[in-house]
């Protein structure tokens, strides 16, 4: 409406996607408004809170300040793409098991930041976990349960078979 339209080709949650978007549209808007992927949360719209975190080529990005045009040719993972075939990813189960989910608004971004961390570092120490999640704000949990969940998820991902629950 307000600007030119461009065609965008990228991989979204493992599937090829072609979509026409406004050249000025932010990735978060396109995901939510054009593609109906409402799991990407919007809050600050200025890249400060991390609620809109998605992974672009495996790296975390605040999708509210990334132009949709920038992901042309990239692989984008949103929270909807994490549970393969309906089975929860170990990070998702760890968040549930450790009580790391409260209101749920920061949760998708928090889980994706965790995924980016654990993909590059299978056994992060506490300082590395804190640093990796620094950009994801949570006002409910006090973070303690989230840190426990990350460490539990790391353990699950390292283990060859599923870790038994408590």
């Amino acid at each position, binding site marked *: 409406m307000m600007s030119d339209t461009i065609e965008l080709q990228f991989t979204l949650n493992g599937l090829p996607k072609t979509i026409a978007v406004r050249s000025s549209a932010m990735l978060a808007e396109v995901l939510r408004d054009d593609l109906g992927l409402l799991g990407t949360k919007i809050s600050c719209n*200025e890249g400060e809170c991390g609620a809109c975190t998605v992974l672009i080529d495996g790296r975390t990005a605040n999708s509210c300040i990334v132009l949709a045009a920038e992901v042309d040719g990239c692989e984008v993972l949103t929270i909807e793409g994490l549970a393969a075939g309906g089975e929860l990813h170990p990070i998702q189960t760890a968040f549930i098991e450790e009580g790391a989910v409260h*209101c749920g608004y920061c949760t*998708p971004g928090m889980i994706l930041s965790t995924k980016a961390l654990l993909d590059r570092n299978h056994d992060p120490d506490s300082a590395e976990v804190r640093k990796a999640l620094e950009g994801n704000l949570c006002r409910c949990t006090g973070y303690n349960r989230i840190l426990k969940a990350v460490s539990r998820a790391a353990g699950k991902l390292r283990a060859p078979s599923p870790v038994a629950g408590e």
Partner: protein
Amino acid sequence: MDVVGKSVLRGDAYKKVVGTHEFAIDGRVPGMLWARLVRAPTGHGRIVSVDASEALAVPGVVSVITAADLPKPMPLYGSVVADQPLLADGTYRYHGEPVAVVLADNDEAALIGAARTRIAYEELPAVVTVADALAHDAALVHDTEGGPRSNVHKAYNYAWGDVGSAEAQCHKIFENTYTFPMIHHFALEPFSVIAWPESGGVQIKSPVQHPFLLRRVVAECLKLELSKVRVVATSIGGGFGSKGYAKYEPLAACLALQTGRPVKISTSLDEAFVTARRLSATVRMRTGFDRDGRILLQQVEADYLMGAYADAGPRITQKAAYVSCGPYRIPNLRTVARAIYSNTTPSTAARGFGMPPLNFALETQMQMAARDLGIDPVEIRLRNLVRKGEQLVPGDIPADGEWSEGLRRAADMLGWDEPLPPGTGRGISIGIKNPIPGSVSNALVKLHADNSLTVAVGTSEMGQGACTVLAQIAAEELGIPMDRITMIMGDTAAVPFDVATAGSRSTVTMGNAVQSACKDVIKQLEDMAKELGLIAADETVQIKGGMVSDGQNSLSFNDIFTRYFSKTQGEVVGRGLYKGEVVAGHPLGGLSDFWEVIFIAVKARVDPATGKVRITKMINVSDIGKAINPLHCKSQEEGGAMMGLGHALMEQMLYDEKGRLRNGSPLDYRIPTTMDIPWEMDSSLVENQDGAGPFGAKGIGESGAITAAAAIAAAVADATGVFFKDLPITSERVWAALSADKA
């Protein structure tokens, strides 16, 4: 017990981790108009004109509404005093007050339209501090004809004993002034509401903590019957009090009725800073001790600075001052608290209601007395803590726990007596608060023929876990597995009345209502079985696993249903009511249901070169009576404590002299991140089954937010020798104080 006392995992967590959990901001309704607000540019002014011509030229913009387009006189809303207009009418009273609203076919057009709407205004003097508001020539925030000529909205007095004659017996009196800044709740989910016309009235979908209170406020504001206002409380993405009372809902409802279309008002996180904040306060406190550290008297003057509209401010002031004695035995007390208007963001409920400023003051006084009198900070508190069964506030319920147990446990878990490394200090504090006195909760429980259950309550789910905990109570009571229980929450057309999801009350008050509704179901099943002659009339029945038995005969619910109602028909509807004790003439309207008491102990390290405070260890303990779900309880403790850590060390809203908010964005207003959390954090629950709730439970929601700041301030004082009386204790303040000390 099978379910209660177990850390049952959250019923709503699955949708939250896969991204399908719906929040109000995600909602779209066919034919919906998107609304964005145009806001006042300074703290106080007269609106000369609103120029919407450029906005109306934006494709997609449908209309630009100002006060002139709304009903006359301007509808006002508010839960305590109806003083807030739907849109500023002639005068605006705070930076960010809605002056106009742009309605458009899509959100982008509404946003652009709002940015292109011009307000011509004349500035008026703005009142932004307590001193401004009380100055003899202060501008009036509400300068209404025939109205009061003061910014003091109300004063609340409490007194017992005789402060004057106790004075002479005091060995030492500590007199200090403390300030507690304006704090923003910082819920991550922005305010968002959809309203649409429905059956001669209006339906409102909003992440609101108190749907029934909102229903009343909207009905009063728009002159509708209660039955014509349906509020559907959506799952809340962080509330902390900010989403308790009416915000944009009355305006959305009015616009929906006026346009005949669904209207969605969306806001950004920045706009949340001009929507709600915690009351700031200046507290002058005199506390007199005998030689042994026993409190003999206390005098308090607390000035609570509300924003431009009352919202819950008067009630917050009144309620906090009521417990100005803290958890201590104070034989002589005199407290006056004033609720004062200012040209700032309307202040509302916030975790801990009005307690944090008073708690910070009182606990710092205790810390000073401990040092001055040479008594250990734990010991001086033990000497003053009321014992179980002892009167705290005269005329209210006595202490409902042996609170020394929690205090000792917090100290032990911290390693209170361990030697400290250089530059490190230890601090401990106790927080106390009462829930909503004389409050009402109803619950409906529907037992279906297949041994599944629907529980309908007015409680809102805001991440605290009410949907899980209330289901656990029903599961325990009826012996029905958790996965066969469905919770229906917060839809005023579908669930019975509840006053509020606030004050740590739901587990106790709604929990009691759910429990009593389950007992009603059992009673009805028993009557049905006896009427059918299936169970002997003089037997008591047992209910478990979908079976009713009298020890000899055992019948499934389905058996009873089929025989009583006929095949494929019927359900048993149980009704539960909890009503707190209402007392005529009581300043708060009734008695406390329980006391929420928490204990925080911390170790803090202070870097003298930078003034940076690091919390190296933090212990949270709550006197919880019975933890229905221990994991949820500990999570509440930790979340509350971290919010309190933010209050202690970094958070404050800052205004300039024109009443403009200078740091109203997440970029400029810092809350704790993962980098700020204590290096070591542990939590514990004191469980003596002595609460007023189901299975002896008490509430825990406000928790650490009440007293974390006091514990941290005490640790900083222990480390540096400096008592900070103004929050937040920023690095600058610490550095400046330490540098001044050296000079």
